[in-house]
């Protein structure tokens, strides 16, 4: 890889997704890098692609943003044409098809699609070539994921409540931010439950000690 292209890439990242009792937590840190430079200290890495579906991104910023825009459009069209919201599984399958169709010139990304539909809460991890796997409990992507997994595997409990899930997500990200040079700055948390897609504001995060 040449110097120019590596400078366009946001390689280091940590994202996590957790299924709790009544929904999904999606959380990311906010560092974007260009080689060894921290290009941004408040990068957006969680996108709302449908009413109750979010997508976290890791990898090339441009690729991730383009995919987020395309998925938003596809989900909107699905919802309006069919008069019902797209399921998390359908959105992941669609994304998987989109990525696999470009496998010879791939989008440089690692994604998590998570949300709530008629069947309940679910999360999918989707790779650059379109490999989509449904995860039952937790998933993490990006260069900081090994550190995040250490915490998640240790502390995750099935059917945990929302507050516990949010603090576990934050705890796992903090671990990653301490030991992964590609992750740092701040944390972004989204909770998706039956009745809401909620992105925590700075103030709300300050209340829970961030």
């Amino acid at each position: 890889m040449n110097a120019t292209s590596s400078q366009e890439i946001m390689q280091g990242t940590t994202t996590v997704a957790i299924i709790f009792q009544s929904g999904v937590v999606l959380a990311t840190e906010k560092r974007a890098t260009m080689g060894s430079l921290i290009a941004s200290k408040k990068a957006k890495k969680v996108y709302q692609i449908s009413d109750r579906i979010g997508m976290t991104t890791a990898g090339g910023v441009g690729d991730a943003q383009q995919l987020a825009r395309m998925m938003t459009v596809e989900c909107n069209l699905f919802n309006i044409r069919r008069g019902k919201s797209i399921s998390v599984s359908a959105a992941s399958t669609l994304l998987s098809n989109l990525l696999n169709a470009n496998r010879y010139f791939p989008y440089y990304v690692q994604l998590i699609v998570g949300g709530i539909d008629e069947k309940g809460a679910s999360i999918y991890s989707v790779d650059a070539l379109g490999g989509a796997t449904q995860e039952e409990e937790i998933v993490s992507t990006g260069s900081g994921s090994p550190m995040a997994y250490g915490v998640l595997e240790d502390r995750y409990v099935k059917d945990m409540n929302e507050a516990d899930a949010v603090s576990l997500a934050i705890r796992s990200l903090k671990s990653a931010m301490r030991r992964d040079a590609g992750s740092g700055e701040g944390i972004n948390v989204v909770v998706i439950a039956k009745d809401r897609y909620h992105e925590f504001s700075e103030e709300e995060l300050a209340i829970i000690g961030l």
Partner: protein
Amino acid sequence: MQPQYQMGYDRAITVFSPDGRLYQVEYAREAVKRGTTALGIKYRDGVILIVDKRVSSRLLEATSIEKIFKIDDHIGVASSGLVGDARSLVDRARIECQINKITYDEKIDVEVLSKKLCDHMQTYTQFGGARPYGTALLIAGVSDGYARLFETDPSGTLLEYKATGIGIGRPAVMKVFEEKYDEEADLDSSVSLGLKALHEATEGKFDVNTVEIGSIETASASFKKMSKSEVAQFVENIESS
């Protein structure tokens, strides 16, 4: 001798007549009106489709006439009008179901499929170079736990019915349904009602070989065509009553 330059509003399908009609589309509807009778009924536990195959000769193998088609596990259609056109639409419908499965990993919604077919049929009322389909379809299926029954026509109009008929016997069938339809009826009495309506429409000229029945239950969401012996059972019941 002056050449005649008279505008024929029934030649090109894309041209409106001065009173706002598309003659080719109306002629296509006429092809359906002359087609064999097909009917659909929603009942308590699902939907049924019944068609009259109109076997014109004792030399004809009745099994070679097919007017009820399975489209996907949860959808079936009955056709009236040009059979060749119907088969082409059926193939398209089957492909749309598989496209939806591949794209979203989900069964296609019956309404979504019906709309897709109608969108396709509509293009032949607007763009030149081809004629409209001379076929109407009854699309029966189950989506999200509900039985659905749609009727399409060559113009691309889509309507949902509790019970309806297409083809030459439509007026007779609708008359019977208007009087006797009951949405809480069970399978046996709904098939009987359908056969009675078909009996009226065909002036009694049908037997086991000329009737085809397809059904889908809301609970199983699995479309099935009845075997000859199952159909025979129903026809006998109707004839004995």
